[in-house]
Structures are given as structure tokens and as C-alpha cells.
């Protein structure tokens, strides 16, 4: 008797309960995979897809109805909203034109070229070929940005990669939607008409997102000081802006007319993240950050599990040739987009020139992830043939897997080789010195203890103590020289130490409550003070760790900021 037959033996078990059981099982799988991948140092998202393969063996138990509406309407909006919420307009502004060129021209170029080539080489009909071109042009920088933070690459490079990814996600989704719509319509498909519709749909979506984002920022976030209400409002905004744009046609009496819900979500997130959040209290900021981080984690986990469930390994073998074409093509197009557009940007705006080292990182860092997979899952056999849908899903899976395993795992080495990992090597040296000082001091303490206990002869104990003292002095001097040579490390150490100290204060407060020394109401009053200090530290850290003024750098002719 199968697990499904046991669980669903009763006729009374409705669809809702079935989906609920499936969701619980998938979340449990996600948690187990997170623990294992962390211990085994294996990429979490890849592990989720593999787990999805195996979970597909559970059959009906994990069979969630993965409809296009579920993916586009429920899972994609949080991903985009969270990304835009954390995108600093101040940082983005200096390179906005470059980012928009990559996102708009790069994505449209990728959509058309990949679409035409897979149509010609693999025989896919044009609409689904363009749909594949669009979905595979959406880059996902999550894994790359994690490396950026670890390795301490220049902030401008992070902004370029993150900004391009965010905007190209939105452009890709719009292009994808148009391609699918073209397949659904009985009218003849024209590139000119699609481009015109693209701009109407995009501009309308953006306008709705900007408008709603501003209304929520000025009407709620600026006037209400309640973390729960404000956070709930942002959730309503994310889904509300999507719905209003997507169903805009209902309001004007034409149900077939849709604006871009995805762009509406992205625009709303950008406004809240850069306007609305400035008027919130530190407590709300912390709550918002944690809420959206959790929601994104859940959505990411589900998307990667769904693709594992949807694409059994045997299909991968059947379409291996198509996967090879897709990988080669996506890499080739990425080369043209990154190096070609960088050349154009440098010629048109010399101040925004992108260094070759940055271009290498942007090319190899063009990983594909949740958005590509989510869009591939929305393809249905109602519109396309089952074989075409299967091929596109397997190709998407193959490209995502290749970029995560091939590119993702080699990014750190590339960044180091290009000399962009400025802080990491310095920090490693700093930590070596700190570790040696700690070791020597421990040795010195042990010698002193042995001397005091009479285990060691007095003279020997003093001689050993002196030797250790010299070692400690030497290491301390080396650390001091290192910090003098790398002054940015001092600031980083100061901020980190302060953050640790505040965490210790929080812990002490909690312990005092647990021990009954402090009443919980007093702790409740004091806790926000510590949260506020952490938020203040975040803001100061962002400013303190800014790159030097590049315009000053050029005057000094010692510019390594990549401009």
C-alpha cells in the first residue's frame, strides 16, 4: 500500500488538505536539505532540485497543482518585491543608465537571438522559442552576491550585477508573457506589434507600481508606527499591485487587456525600499527585513523543489542535445551582451566605463535561477505541445544547473584571480595575526600556571614566559603594521566588534529576564533600543564602507575602482 493511498484513503480529504499536506512535506524536505547542504558545503538550490527528483517518487503526496497562476501570481511577486526593497537608489543612480541598457537591450537581444536560434536548430515553434529566450535571459545574482559580500568586491560591481538582474527579471517576465500570449492568440504574430505592446504593458505596470508604492509610503508607512501593520501593508502592496496591473482590463471593460503585474511589483518595491522605509521606525525596518527574508527563502525553496518534481532525471537524458544547445547559446549570448554593451556604454559615456575585470565577472556571474525556473513551470500543454513544454523545461533546468554548478562554484576563484577580492585577503592575514596572538597568549597563560603550581622550575617558567611575551609582542606589532597598511580593516573591525557587543547586550537582557532579575515589561521597553542601535550601525556601515570618490581617483591617476 503506497503512502498516498494511506493518506488519501478517505474521500473526505479535499484538495485543500491534499495541498496542505504536500506543502508541509515540501517544507520539511527544504529544511532537511538546508541542514545537509550546509554541513556538506553543497549549493543549497542544487540540492533542492536533486531532492525534488527523489521526492517525485512520493507521487500524489507531493503533487501540488503548480499552475501558471500559482507561479506568476503567488511565487514570483515576493521574489521581485524583496529584491527591489533592498536595492538602494542612491547606489544605483550613478550606474542607472548602464544597468538599464543591460536589462532592456540585453534581455530583448537575448530573447530574440535565443528564440530564433532554438527555433532554427531545435525546431521549436517561434512563440515558445521566444518564451524560452526570455526566461533564460533573466539572471539570478543571489549566489554571486553572496560571494561579493564574502570577498569584499567593490560596491559598484555589486550594484551593476544586482541592478541588471533585478531589471532584467522584470523585462524577461514581460517578454515571456507576450510570447506566451502570442501563442494563445489566433491573430498573426508580428514583432512590431509585440514591441509596441511591450512598451504599453511595461509603462502601465510601472505607473501602477509607482503610484501604489507612493500611496503606501506616504499614507501608511509615514503615518503609522506599528511594525505589524506596516509589514502587512507591504505584503498587500506586493500582491495588490500585481493584481491591479494584471487585471487592469476588468476595470476598463476589456478583460483581455493586461498590464505588467511583475513590473508593478518591482516598481512598488523600489518606492517602498527607497522612500517609504525611510519614514519607518527601526523596529519596523527589522521586522520588514526578517519577514521578507523568510518569505523569499520559502518561495525560493518551493520553486527549486517544484522544478525537481517536474523534471524527472530520465527526461534530462532524453533531451541532452537540446540542453547542450541551450547552455552553449546562453553563454554565447551572454558574451555578446556583456562585452558588446560594455563597449557601447564606454564609448557613449566614458565616465561610466566598465573595466574588463568587471565585465568578466558580469559574464561569468550571469547565473540563472528561480525566475527562469518559475517561468518554465508556467508553460502549459493547453497552449503548447507536451513535447515542446517538456523540452523547454528540461533545457531551462539544464542551463540553471550548469550555471549554479559550473559558474557558481568557480566565481570566487575568478574574483580572486582578477584581483577584485580586495578585502578578503587582507582580512585573512588580519585573522591569522589575531589567531596567533590568541595562541601565544594561551601558551603564556599555561606556562604561568605551571610556574605558579610549582610544576616548572621558577627560572624555566620565567624564561618561557619571556619567550612567549616576545612572541606576543612580535605578533601584535605585525597586526598593527597590517592595520596601518590596510586602514579599512580598522573600521570593519570596529563595526564588527560593536555589533558583537550589542548582540551580547541583547543576550544579557534575555538572560536577566530568564533568571527573573528583570521584569519582562522592562526588557520589552529596552529591547527596541538595542534593535535601533543595530539599524543605525547598518546605515553607518553602508556610508563608512563607501568606495572613494571616483572623480577624485581619476585626478590622482590611481584609480582602481573599475571606472
Amino acid at each position, binding site marked *: 500500500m503506497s503512502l498516498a493511498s494511506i493518506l488519501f484513503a478517505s474521500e473526505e480529504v479535499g484538495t485543500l488538505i491534499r495541498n496542505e499536506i504536500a506543502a508541509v512535506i515540501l517544507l520539511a524536505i527544504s529544511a532537511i536539505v538546508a541542514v545537509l547542504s550546509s554541513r556538506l558545503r553543497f549549493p543549497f538550490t542544487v540540492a533542492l532540485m536533486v531532492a525534488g527528483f527523489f521526492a517525485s517518487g512520493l507521487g500524489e503526496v507531493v503533487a501540488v497543482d503548480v499552475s501558471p497562476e500559482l507561479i506568476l501570481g503567488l511565487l514570483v511577486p515576493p521574489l521581485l518585491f524583496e529584491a527591489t526593497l533592498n536595492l538602494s537608489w542612491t547606489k544605483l543612480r550613478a550606474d542607472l543608465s548602464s544597468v538599464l541598457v543591460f536589462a532592456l537591450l540585453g534581455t530583448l537581444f537575448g530573447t530574440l537571438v535565443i528564440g530564433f536560434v532554438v527555433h532554427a536548430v531545435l525546431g521549436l515553434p517561434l512563440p515558445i522559442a521566444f518564451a524560452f529566450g526570455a526566461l533564460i535571459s533573466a539572471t539570478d545574482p543571489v549566489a554571486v552576491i553572496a560571494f561579493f559580500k564574502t570577498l569584499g568586491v567593490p560596491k559598484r560591481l555589486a550594484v551593476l550585477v544586482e541592478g541588471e538582474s533585478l531589471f532584467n527579471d522584470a523585462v524577461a517576465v514581460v517578454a515571456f508573457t507576450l510570447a506566451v500570449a502570442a501563442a494563445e492568440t489566433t491573430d498573426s504574430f508580428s514583432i512590431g506589434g509585440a514591441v509596441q505592446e511591450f512598451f504599453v504593458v511595461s509603462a502601465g505596470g510601472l505607473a501602477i507600481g509607482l503610484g501604489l508604492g507612493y500611496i503606501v509610503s506616504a499614507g501608511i508607512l509615514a503615518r503609522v508606527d506599528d511594525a505589524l501593520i506596516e509589514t502587512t501593508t507591504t505584503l498587500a502592496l506586493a500582491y495588490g499591485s500585481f493584481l491591479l496591473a494584471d487585471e487592469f482590463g476588468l476595470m476598463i471593460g476589456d478583460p483581455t487587456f493586461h498590464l505588467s503585474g511583475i513590473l508593478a511589483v518591482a516598481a512598488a518595491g523600489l518606492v517602498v525600499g527607497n522612500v517609504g522605509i525611510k519614514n519607518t521606525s527601526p523596529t519596523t525596518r527589522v521586522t520588514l527585513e526578517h519577514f521578507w527574508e523568510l518569505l523569499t527563502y520559502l518561495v525560493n525553496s518551493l520553486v527549486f523543489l517544484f522544478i525537481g518534481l517536474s523534471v524527472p532525471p530520465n527526461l534530462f537524458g532524453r533531451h541532452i542535445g537540446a540542453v547542450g544547445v541551450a547552455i552553449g547559446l546562453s553563454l554565447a549570448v551572454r558574451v555578446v551582451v556583456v562585452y558588446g554593451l560594455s563597449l557601447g556604454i564606454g564609448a557613449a559615456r566614458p565616465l561610466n566605463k566598465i573595466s574588463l575585470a568587471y565585465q568578466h565577472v558580469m559574464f561569468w556571474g550571469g547565473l540563472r535561477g528561480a525566475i527562469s525556473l518559475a517561468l518554465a513551470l508556467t508553460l502549459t500543454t493547453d497552449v503548447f505541445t507536451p513535447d515542446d513544454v517538456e523540452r523547454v523545461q528540461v533545457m531551462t533546468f539544464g542551463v540553471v544547473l550548469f550555471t549554479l554548478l559550473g559558474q557558481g562554484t568557480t566565481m570566487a576563484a575568478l574574483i580572486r584571480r582578477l584581483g577584485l577580492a580586495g578585502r578578503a585577503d587582507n582580512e585573512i592575514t588580519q585573522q591569522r595575526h589575531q589567531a596567533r596572538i590568541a595562541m601565544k597568549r594561551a601558551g603564556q597563560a599555561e606556562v604561568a600556571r605551571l610556574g605558579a603550581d610549582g610544576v616548572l622550575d621558577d627560572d624555566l617558567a620565567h624564561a618561557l614566559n619571556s619567550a612567549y611575551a616576545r612572541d606576543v609582542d612580535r605578533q601584535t606589532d605585525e597586526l598593527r603594521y597590517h592595520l596601518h597598511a590596510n586602514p579599512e580593516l580598522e573600521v570593519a573591525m*570596529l563595526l564588527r566588534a560593536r555589533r558583537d557587543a550589542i548582540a551580547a547586550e541583547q543576550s544579557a537582557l534575555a538572560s536577566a529576564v530568564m533568571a527573573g532579575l528583570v521584569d519582562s515589561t522592562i526588557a520589552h521597553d529596552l529591547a527596541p533600543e538595542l534593535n535601533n542601535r543595530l539599524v*543605525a550601525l547598518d546605515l553607518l556601515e553602508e*556610508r563608512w564602507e563607501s568606495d*572613494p570618490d571616483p572623480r577624485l581617483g581619476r585626478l590622482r591617476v590611481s584609480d582602481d575602482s573599475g571606472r
Partner: protein
Amino acid sequence: MTAADDQTDNYLYVSWGGSGRTSCLRQAIERAEANDASLRYLAILDDATFSGIDASLRAVVADELTWLLETQIDLARRQTGIDRRVRLQVESGEVGSVSAAVAKATDATLILVGAPVPVSHSQTVVELMAALAATTGSVVELIEP
């Protein structure tokens, strides 16, 4: 009245962010010590970064910045071995106008600009230094980490 108040030269060290601040501060302390000048540390929460922030949060940021900079001054004094008083002043506003106002109010003879991150999208550090020199009549120099 302290000995510092009797000194003729008043140095103003201005900073509004950027890495390598302690290194710059050390150099400012050494300059002040070498010329027996008083030293005031003006830290600015610049409008370009902090203007849109909620007022209560801005107060916490200023408080936290003061705490960090007092620690940093103590660190720099220990590192240089110079026990010279450094007056800390944290202000909010536009970098150029705040710097000029404080320089005038304190009769600064030398303005030291430390760890220069961009002032704003429209003004370079070099332009800021030229404007400060023109409006205050003080000598303005750049300190690099």
C-alpha cells in the same frame, strides 16, 4: 579654560564617511601635535545619505556615531601615543555648508578633509575643497588613508 583654548591654530578635521577613517584621524592628530594646534573632529551625517531618514532614527544614528567616534579617537590616540584632546562634534546637513559654518564658528586656520567619499552626485571632493577655501579663507587640505 584649557591650554587648547589659548592656542592660535585651530584645526578642523572633517569627515562624512568612507573607509580608512582611523588612518586619516591619526594623521590629523599628528599634524595638530606637530604644530601645537587644537583639533576639532567634525563628523557629518550628510544629507545625500541621511536626509530622508525618520527623525527618531536619525537621532539614534547620531548617538551611535558619537559612540563609535569616541572609541575611534581613543584608538587613534593610543596608536599615535599622542595624548592630545580631540573635540568631537556630530552634525547633520549638507557637507559644504555645515563644514563652512563650523570652520567659521571655530576660527579654523586649517581644514583637513579625511577619507573622501563622494560628497553628492553633483559635487566632487575637489570642488568642495575649493568652495570651503573660498568661503572660509582657511587652508583646506586632503588627508588620504
